[in-house]
Every structure is written in structure tokens, then in C-alpha cells.
């Protein structure tokens, strides 16, 4: 039942579609986004504030999200992020790319399962 540690590189690569995807569900703020990621990954994706906030600011600079300081009733004033149309387009594009990667990986893993996990490197290829 060991915890899967996702490498830093993979976390970084998946960061943009992750945040855009969460914001596509509705506007949100930093702390809530981080909690949502935690929830989605069962606590296995290690995100830091140093990753999240600069990323949000970069998305804002590129126009994928819009930020505004708002005070929702009964809550503190917070900086809320909202996805833009451009951000939705970017999300669609990223999703297409990720689907390609995931599909390809699935193909490989299905093939491996059929041939048995021990023959990870087929002999023909190694020669």
C-alpha cells in the first residue's frame, strides 16, 4: 500500500492542466486549489506554494486566468482566480496532448501485461 511519490518533473509538467482544470470547475483561490489537488490525488501529488503561486501568476500573465480580490460573504478577502476563454482553449489543447501521451502509455502497458512484466525489453529490440 506504499505511497507513490510522483517526481518533481512530472508534477511540474502536469501542473498547468491540473490548475486550469480545477479552475474550469469554477473560480477559486490558492489555498482551495491546493486542497483540491490534494483531494484529487489522495495526497500523493506534492505541491508547494512555491509551485502554485508563481504558476498562477504566469497563467495570469498569459491571459489564461483572471485574478481579482473579492470578499465572499462570511469569508476573508481573497485573491480569486477565474479561467478565461483563452484558458479554456489552452486547457483543451493540453488535454489533447495528455490524452495522446496517456493513450500511448496505456498501449505499452497493456502490451507488457500480455507479454508478462519480466520481458520488459524484447530481445529483438535489444539486439
Amino acid at each position, binding site marked *: 500500500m506504499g505511497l507513490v511519490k510522483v517526481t518533481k518533473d512530472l508534477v511540474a509538467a502536469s501542473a498547468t492542466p491540473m490548475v486550469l482544470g480545477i479552475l474550469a470547475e469554477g473560480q477559486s*483561490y*490558492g*489555498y*482551495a486549489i*491546493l486542497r483540491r489537488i490534494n483531494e484529487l490525488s489522495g495526497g500523493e501529488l506534492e505541491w*508547494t*506554494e*512555491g*509551485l502554485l*503561486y*508563481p*504558476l498562477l*501568476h*504566469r497563467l495570469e*500573465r498569459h491571459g489564461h486566468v483572471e485574478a481579482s*480580490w473579492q470578499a465572499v460573504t462570511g469569508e*476573508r*478577502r*481573497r*485573491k480569486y482566480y477565474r479561467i478565461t476563454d483563452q484558458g479554456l482553449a489552452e486547457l483543451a489543447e493540453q488535454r489533447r496532448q495528455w490524452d495522446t501521451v496517456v493513450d500511448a502509455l496505456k498501449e505499452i502497458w497493456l502490451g507488457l501485461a500480455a507479454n508478462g512484466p519480466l520481458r520488459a525489453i524484447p530481445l529483438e529490440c535489444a539486439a
Partner: protein
Amino acid sequence: MTAPEGQEGLEAQLAQWRQYVQRRRELQPADADELEDHLRGSVDELVAVGLSADEAFLVAVKRMGSLDELSREFAREHSERLWKQLVLTGDTSSPAAGKRPPRDLLVMVGCAAGAAVSIKVPALFGISMQHDGEFYALNFSLFAMPWLAGFLAWRRRASAALIAVLVALFALGAVAANIYPLGDESQSVVLTTIHLPIALWLVVGLAYVADEWRSSRKRMDFIRFTGEWFVYFVLIALGGGVLTAFMFGTFEAIGIVPETFVSQWLIPCGAMAGVVVAGWLVEAKQGVVENIAPVLTRLFTPLFTAVLLAFLVAIIWTSNGINVEREALILFDLLLVVVLGLLLYSLSARDPLAPPGLFDRLQLAMVVSALAIDVLVLIEITGRIADYGTTPNKAAALGENVILLANLAWSAWLLLKFLRRRGQFAALERWQTNYLPVYAAWAWIVVFVFPPLFSYA
């Protein structure tokens, strides 16, 4: 929620944490707000599962990771923040700040415009720049400096008494410039033209230090202000030169020669406004860029020391006497001014508590060699004055030489004591700041006493 006591402690801890965050250049107030909100969210959650406010805060901060790492990540996205920008429209980074331009900017623009207009006022009374050059030479510092002093006094909310003193001193300057019947050929015209700006600049200094005029630290700030002001003014002048050149070239290309406009409006008005703008820039940019004057002194102190030592060696080697013409005396005065400037501006940037180092030795070498050269010059010149009698120019040059010599000699002594660890560095700083009134007094004497003393020669 938490007990009020715990809440209070939490607020204090958060305030302290904010201070740490705001010390980071990469993290702006808006980021601090955002991160603080994050921290509060984290704390609330931890408190909800049963931690005390104190514990929750510690855990939340720990989770956020080190500030070093955080600011490094922020710097990757916001690299422009490492290049400090001068924000002209107020604090735009804070969401609380409004959009209106700061009052500072408006007052500065007003003062700069006032200075620019002032120089054209005499023209209304028929005093033209072309024919009455002497009037403008004597008075040019009176057009801009009162505005700069006014701006500074406004910024410091100067007391009525101080404002009265400033007005009185500027009025005194106006009297000194215009009361005496000086001929076109009179040496006193040149002397007043040089010394009145010095006297009035120290009046600006009074506006700068305001009510804290006794404080040595504050006077040192004025010395720093002067150096930075000079650097900014030169930069503005260079920009103005480019503007003028383009204006001339482009208008000439369509057959209009804007000579009168450039020489009688653009340059004089621009220079006067530049005096105020440069002062405002120094005030506004404190902390925007590294002070440049100390950097220049670091660069040039070794070079000047080398030149002075080479000159001394050459004198001894060739046993040539110094050919003391009047120009030579002024040249050596300027040399002492430069050496004093190099000394002052490296003092201004030095940590007073740091132990003596190589650079301090270098400075002592520079000051001592300048003194040695100057003594040689003085020996020559006093002989000359004894032979041929004196003129206003010679007397002024000699007086300046003595004042600078006294300053540098005592500085060298203090520097030596400091190097041998028998004295404090602060003593040197205090000596220099205490000496400022001497320059003021001498400048006023030359402006006020010299013309009648030498019967308006």
C-alpha cells in the same frame, strides 16, 4: 474558533511573518497578502482538527517551506522584480492603493514648472538673455533652487520657523547677487556666479535636513543626496542634449531653424526644471537603485591615487617647480575638491562599524599625496601674492585652498588614527558633516564681502 488570547498571539505571529516576507524583493505586498491568506487557511484547518493556534501556525509555516525557496520560485516568474523599477504612479502592486497619481508627483511637477517659468520672468521686465548675460549668470541659481528647497520643505512638512529662515536666506542671496554695481569685466561677477550656487545649495541642504539640522546622520544623508542629485542631473542633461539635437535636426530638415527657441526656452527652462526633477528622483528612488556615487568613488579612488603619486614622483625626479599661474591655483583647488569628493562619497557608503581595510589605506595614501602636492603649490603661490598684491580671484582661490587643506589634513589624521585602531570611524564622518557650515560661511563671505572689499574689481 480559538480563544481570543490565542487569536491575538496568532495575529502577532502573522504580522512578524509578513515582515520577513516583505523584506524579500521578489515578493510584493500583493503576494504577501495572498500567501498570508494561504497561511490563514492552513491554520484554520489545523485548528479545526484540534491544534492550538500556536501549534497550527508553526505547522502551517513549516508546510509552506523556507522563504528562500519560495522567493526563488517567485523570482523565476517575476524576474523583472529584481530590476527595481521606479513606480511613477504610486504603489500599484497593492490592491488597496487607488489609481490617483501620488501627491508627491503633482507637487514635483508644480515645482519644476515653477522653476522653468521663473527663469523667463525677468524677460517680462525687459531683461533679455541675449544682452544681459551677466544678470542671468549672477542669478541663475535663484530661479531653480528655491523651488527645489520648497519641494523638500513640503515633503518634510517643515515648520513655519524653518520656512521663514529659508525664505530669508534666498532673499539674502537675491540681494547679494544684485546689490553691487559690478562691471562686465569684474572678477567678482565670476566669483559670485560660482559661489552663490554653493551658498544656496547649502540652503537647499537646510530644507533637506529640516528640523534635524543638528544630526550628523541627517547631514550625511544630505551629502548622499547631493551626490545622487548630481548623477541624476547629468543623466537628465544628457537626455536633454539628445532631445535638443533631434529637435534641431528634424526642424532644420523642413527649413525651420529653432535656434532662438532652443537657446532661450528649451535649454534654460529645461535645466531649471531638471534641477527639481533630479531632486525628486533622488527622493523617490531611495532604494530603487544602488547609489551610484559611491560606486564611482570605488572605481576612481585607486586611479586618482596612482595619478597623484606619479605626479609627486615626477616632481621629485625632475625637480621641476610647479608653474603657478592663476589657472594652476584653480586647477589645484579643483583637485582638492575631487579628492574630498572621493573621500566623502566612500565615507557615505561605508559601514561605520567595519574594521579598517585596504581601501581605507588607499584613501589615506590619496589624501596624503594630494596634501603634499597642495603644500608645494601653496608655498609657490604665497610668494607670488606677496610680490604682486592680490586680486579677488587669487584671494578666493587661496581661501578655498586653505579651507580644503584644513579639512583634508584633519581627515588624514583621523583616517590614520582609525587605521591604527586608535579612533572611531564615526569621528571622521562627524568631522565631515560638522565642516559643512564652513563651506556655507565661506561662500556667503565671497558673495557678500568680497565685492566691496576689493572695491568691485
